[in-house]
């Protein structure tokens, strides 16, 4: 069937394709402009001038951060390691579950009666913010890092399953077909035909989510899920801006470091 549609597309004269594409593009553009215009007032975008007229307030607030105080750096490092560990477990569990969920929500892998329920479940996971999940889990498992792990795990599963399934939908179906003709089972077709094709992308997505989860794990500290975030919000609430500045710097350095490490990892695997 694919061959046939492909052949049909080839035969079609080029000008017609461009014409239809141009028509569609202008509709997309109009819709986008309309959406932005309608959203201007509700989003209070007209206050953008305040960024300049009241910049002094910001400068005053920011000046508190100008002299970072690293005297407690050992404590901060310990806590940021906890944050990384929360992100690591949350991401790991999410990756493990996203493999089956991602495959089951791909159009070219699963029939609609499996695909749609799985996709709706993933929508649900994704639609609710980590912080909301964290509050829920704090109630269930108590204050501390584990609530953070669970929150990241659920939310990241929703995101990664979607990204994974999009990668699966973009594969070349022909090797999979070839494997099918050898008498391989469905699972074997996926393992030998699909996964080798999507693995580089899946690894990239997973490493990217690990980075983002380190950031998110910091925010989760806000509602008592442990790690550096908790320390940071305590210092901010206590107006210890120079300590908060030191913590911010450490967080930025950590995320940068993770970026470098994940780049190396990606090169190693791909």
């Amino acid at each position, binding site marked *: 069937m694919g061959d046939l549609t492909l052949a049909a597309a080839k035969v079609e004269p080029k000008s017609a394709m461009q014409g239809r594409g141009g028509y569609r593009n202008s509709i997309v553009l109009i819709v986008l402009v309309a959406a932005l215009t309608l959203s201007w007032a509700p989003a209070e975008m007209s206050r953008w001038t305040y960024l300049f007229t009241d910049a002094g307030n910001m400068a005053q607030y920011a000046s508190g951060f100008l002299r970072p105080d690293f005297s407690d750096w050992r404590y901060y490092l310990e806590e940021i390691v906890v944050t990384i560990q929360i992100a690591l477990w949350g991401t790991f569990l999410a990756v493990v579950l996203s493999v089956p969920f991602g495959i089951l929500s791909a159009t070219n892998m699963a029939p609609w009666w499996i695909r749609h329920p799985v996709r709706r479940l993933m929508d649900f996971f994704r639609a609710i913010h980590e912080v909301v999940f964290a509050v829920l889990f704090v109630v269930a498992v108590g204050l501390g890092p584990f609530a953070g792990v669970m929150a990241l795990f659920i939310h990241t599963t929703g995101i990664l399953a979607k990204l994974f399934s999009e990668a699966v939908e973009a594969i070349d179906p022909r090797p999979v*077909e*070839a494997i099918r*003709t*050898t008498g391989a*089972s469905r699972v*074997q077709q996926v393992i030998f035909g699909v996964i080798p094709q999507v693995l580089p992308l899946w690894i990239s997505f997973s490493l990217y989510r690990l980075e983002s989860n380190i950031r998110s794990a910091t925010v989760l500290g806000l509602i008592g899920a442990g790690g550096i975030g908790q320390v940071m919000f305590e210092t901010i609430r206590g107006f210890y801006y120079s300590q908060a500045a030191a913590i911010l710097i450490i967080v930025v350095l950590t995320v940068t470091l993770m970026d470098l490490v994940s780049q190396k990892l990606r090169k190693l695997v791909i």
Partner: protein
Amino acid sequence: MIAVAVSNLSKSYGNTCALKDVSLTLARGEMVALIGASGSGKSTLIRHIAGLEAGDGGAGRIEIFGELTQSAGRFLRRGKRSRVAVIFQQFNLVGRLSVLMNVLIGHLGRTPRWRGTLGLFNRAEKAKAHKALERVGIPQVAAQRSSTLSGGQQQRAAIARTLVQEAEILIADEPISALDPSAARRVMDVLADINAKDDITILVSLHQVEYARRYCRRTIAMRDGAIVYDGPSSALSPDFLAELYGAASEELVLPDIPAGDQTAPLAESRKRRATLLPA
């Protein structure tokens, strides 16, 4: 003994009729060419025999060694596919896996399910794969990623995969049209060798009649989804082809291929084909 029997097979995609009431039989041990211009239904027919697609409902049936595989648009036995091996125009290897692994995939239908799923092939199976690679003349590339191979090597690796599969029937969907002439000849030689020595029935679709005449005694010609000729390849003279295909026959005919340099005439025929396309 009859290896493949197709009877009254039709297939349409929307309003396009890809196969019109096709019937054919292949005897065991035959090597048959399937020719026709692009869009004549060769690939569709092959995909049906391979069990990758089911025909329209109605009288269409396909039997492999007397066993019904599909009837009236429904598959009848699933999973026991490995008797028919398929070679594709674009090789369809998994690019990121090693050549050896790609060849071992051919064994999945025979390896116990759990071991195959985990990719734990034993020593005997690996030895078999190495032997198959030797047979097709590329033992040195076993450990390489298959995407690093040239087209001809990839096609030979794909043939090795079918050897490991130990299929009794091999169908090849334009196996040489993506290859340069010398690689094409090597691939056709390997196919002819398998046919002669292993008694494997081969159906090979070809774009060029020259290869059909050189390698296959019998040729089946298709046009617009129907079989228009089934008989000895030697009868396929340019005049006869012109009668079958009209102006489109130019696409199928090459000047007789000399043993030496063949790039020039092929390039020429490509040019001719390109000028024909817009019409």
